[in-house]
């Protein structure tokens, strides 16, 4: 049996080099143009503790992490056992472990078949022999699996070189030897019992990125000039990346004392005419709601990235969830329009961030990008063209209009206009001086407390939505549009949904899916198209209270289309698997059949 798709799990302790091994694998595969998807998982400890990666490598585009593991590399049994519920193995999974790490007597979740397909290889011993330390056991392991499953050896070699490029030559050499030792050991001592062989065609290299990096790149592409933030898991890498690279382009990064300061600092920078952004997560976004309301009221363009994590409160800082949706849409007091965009994979993080700047700068309002930990921290291979801008799709950037001479006469910063967007000046423009204000105000920005002014200004602020809706339609449809069964999902749930929908259709189930990218304001058109012929619609989401479903129902009356909405709401912590979604599709499909 030759595979064009393989899912490899590696588990060990923090010191076992699990992540390094995963990264080398990913880089190797990507440099041969393969499609890659890697998830990492850690215990609560900062150092030491348990650690695992799951690397999916494929000759074809991949949408998800791959539900079940083909090859499980156990660098330490005790640590592997901590991931029992996360690392699900195929029934006929191949197991690799270190000869010198005895398997515990009980509680090891391996079936007989797996025990059959189990290779013990002296990873540490070989590493010791070749490098004088057991540290390189992960490299020995790579040599072994590349031989066992025909992974790209040449590329692995290059990747190891790259990994150690800042190290002295002898270190590089000894690691290369260690890898060779793994390969040799397999050749000489291992009798292959499993049929697994990976097969592929090499193509031009693909980039390797994490969601947070794609956001940061997107911001820089869009022309970011000022970033202020406060570290918080799982968003911190955005700030770390930007603080290193933005200054190369004359931009400013400020680490503020808290999120209240961060949001107000970017409002200040944007008031001063700069493209400004912050990124945060759960607790931090809560602290920003007052400032987001201020940006709406004072009509200041800002971009806020919320990398969702498990909640409420401090919750599950390193785990994913999709339960900040309602808060993103409605989180400030008063009628406070803001735009909410949700990326659904790593590449989309780039796009959505670019789009966020476009909307916020053009419509002078806050835009929230709702990423989540699942996208933020996973590694995916990405087409270089997609990022360089040759890809078809959204790539517009916007440079803020400044008021013209006419407008600067008797300048009215909050002038009533057709679109609700008024001429916006900033310091440095003579004649453009005005009062920006979080109080309700008149066209000049001067405070006004009467109901009539408030009604008019509120209308002005909401009008923008009508224009934004005309600019954007970036929803995705999967499967046949006219299928009677539908799935509506958002954000990171896309991957599992897309793969499940494809599988279901292959099984003869007529099911289509809709994944909007612009979440708020609500764009009815794609739903109108999607709802035609639908009888049932499943709404899977990582939110126990079903926020997405509640939100949708607020804006579309499923009943009017004769559609029954079927909730599939679960708490976060771990993302949906393809299997879960597929099973739900099958369940609802059967029920539909039964009632036909």
């Amino acid at each position, binding site marked *: 049996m030759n595979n064009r798709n393989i899912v490899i799990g590696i588990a060990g302790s923090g010191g076992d080099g699990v992540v390094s091994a995963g990264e080398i694998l990913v880089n190797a595969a990507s440099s041969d143009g393969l499609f890659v998807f890697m998830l990492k998982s850690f215990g609560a400890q900062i150092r030491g503790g348990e650690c695992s990666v799951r690397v999916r490598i494929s000759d074809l585009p991949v949408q998800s992490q791959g539900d079940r593991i083909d090859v499980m590399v156990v660098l330490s049994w005790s640590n592997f056992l901590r991931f029992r519920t996360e690392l699900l193995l195929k029934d006929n999974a191949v197991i690799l472990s270190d000869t010198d790490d005895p398997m515990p007597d009980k509680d090891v979740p391996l079936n007989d078949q797996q025990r059959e397909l189990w290779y013990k290889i002296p990873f540490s011993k070989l590493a010791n022999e070749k490098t004088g330390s057991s540290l390189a056991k992960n490299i020995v392991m790579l040599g072994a699996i590349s031989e066992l499953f025909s992974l790209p050896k040449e590329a692995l070699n290059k990747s190891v070189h*790259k990994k150690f490029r800042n190290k002295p030559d002898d270190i590089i050499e000894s690691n290369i030897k260690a890898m060779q030792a793994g390969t040799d050991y397999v050749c000489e001592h291992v009798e292959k019992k499993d049929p697994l062989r990976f097969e592929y065609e090499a193509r031009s290299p693909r980039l*390797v990125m994490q969601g947070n*990096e794609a956001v940061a790149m997107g911001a820089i592409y869009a022309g970011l000039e000022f970033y202020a933030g406060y570290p918080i898991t799982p968003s911190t890498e955005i700030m770390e990346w930007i603080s290193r690279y933005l*200054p190369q382009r004359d931009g400013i990064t400020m680490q503020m004392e808290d999120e209240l300061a961060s949001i107000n600092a970017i409002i200040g920078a944007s008031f001063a005419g700069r493209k400004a952004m912050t990124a945060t997560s759960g607790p931090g976004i809560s602290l920003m709601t007052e400032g987001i309301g201020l940006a709406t009221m004072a009509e200041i363009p800002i971009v806020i990235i919320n990398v969702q994590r498990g909640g409420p409160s401090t919750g599950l800082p390193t785990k994913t969830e999709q339960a900040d949706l309602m808060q993103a849409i409605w989180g400030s007091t008063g009628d406070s329009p803001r735009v909410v965009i949700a990326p659904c994979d790593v590449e989309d993080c780039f796009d959505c961030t670019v789009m966020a700047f476009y909307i916020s700068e053009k419509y002078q309002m806050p835009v929230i990008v709702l990423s989540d930990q699942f996208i933020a921290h996973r590694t995916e291979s990405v087409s270089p063209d997609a990022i360089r801008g040759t890809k078809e799709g959204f790539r517009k950037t916007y440079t803020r209009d400044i008021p013209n001479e006419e407008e600067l006469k008797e300048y009215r910063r909050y002038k009533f206009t057709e679109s609700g967007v008024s001429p916006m000046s900033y310091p440095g423009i003579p004649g453009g*001086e005005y*009062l920006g204000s979080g109080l309700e105000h008149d066209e000049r920005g001067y405070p006004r407390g009467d109901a009539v002014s408030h009604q008019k200004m509120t209308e002005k602020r909401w009008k923008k939505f009508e224009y934004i809706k005309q600019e954007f339609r970036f929803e995705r449809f999967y499967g046949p549009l006219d299928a009677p069964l539908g799935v509506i999902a958002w954000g990171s749930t896309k991957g599992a949904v897309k793969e499940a929908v494809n599988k279901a259709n292959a099984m003869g189930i007529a099911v289509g899916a809709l994944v909007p990218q612009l979440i708020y304001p609500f764009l009815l058109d794609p739903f109108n198209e999607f709802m035609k012929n639908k009888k049932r619609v499943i709404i899977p989401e990582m939110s126990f209270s079903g926020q997405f479903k509640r939100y949708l129902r607020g804006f579309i009356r499923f009943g009017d289309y004769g559609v029954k909405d079927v909730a599939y709401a679960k708490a976060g912590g771990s993302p949906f698997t393809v299997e879960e979604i597929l099973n739900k599709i099958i369940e609802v499909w059967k029920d539909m059949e039964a009632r036909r």
Partner: protein
Amino acid sequence: MNEAKKAADYRSELKPIWCPGCGDFGFLNAMYKALEELQLDPANTVVCSGIGCSSRISGYVKAYSFNGIHGRVLPFASGVKMSRPETTVIAVGGDGDGFSIGAGHIGHAARKNINITYVVLDNNIYGLTKGQASPTTPLGVRTKTTYYGNMGTTFNPVRMLIAYKASFVARTFSGDPKHIQKILVEAVRHPGFAFIEVLSPCVTFRGQDQYKILRERVRYLDESYNPENEVEAFDIANDENMLALGVIYKKIRPTYDEIIQQNVISKAKAASNGVAKIDKLLEQFQP
């Protein structure tokens, strides 16, 4: 600006709605004069504030003005200044805005030496919300929230600012607009974070006699005073009976925008060999 500006040129079209006799008038008028003395260009001046009677001031000055939210004027001002260092930024707020809800920000703006002027119009009360205790309300005073008298030791803002390593710390008094003008001009000219506490009576909630009481409690630092000694400055600040007016502490050190330009941006650019292009940034994602 071709012609010399007059104080009146810095007046916006909005009419102050402070109570007659409010100390904030004294500061506002002195501020107009200081702006004239400094000949600031309104197009390159940002006057920003939080929320409170005192914070209304941003609406009364012709400049790029911003009336933000309660307690957050310093982060806002930092964002403006750091992203557009060529502007003059004056942040204004009340004692509640600055020392209560905004207390977390002052130290950070000060230690970084953000090059702005921060004025607190300290009336020892919450004026706008109609008379509740602030962190500087004297002990024992009955306010709307301290019916049985204000409890808890009060803040000493000047002392705090010195401890925060602010590079310019001064105190002045609404009853002496000339002094305000002098101090404000010096503060704006000071390269770095300049803090001014303005004793500014709230006649409505602290009584009409505040001017008199304060006049008896202030003393002017004389010319011989050298404000560069931290410990001495701290000691002077400790005297809460006779409040010293003038520049109490001052020491010049690099401002945050200078530091970032010199130590971050120039290093970063050197590291990237000129302005980094997208394609160059992308390289790091190559496998």
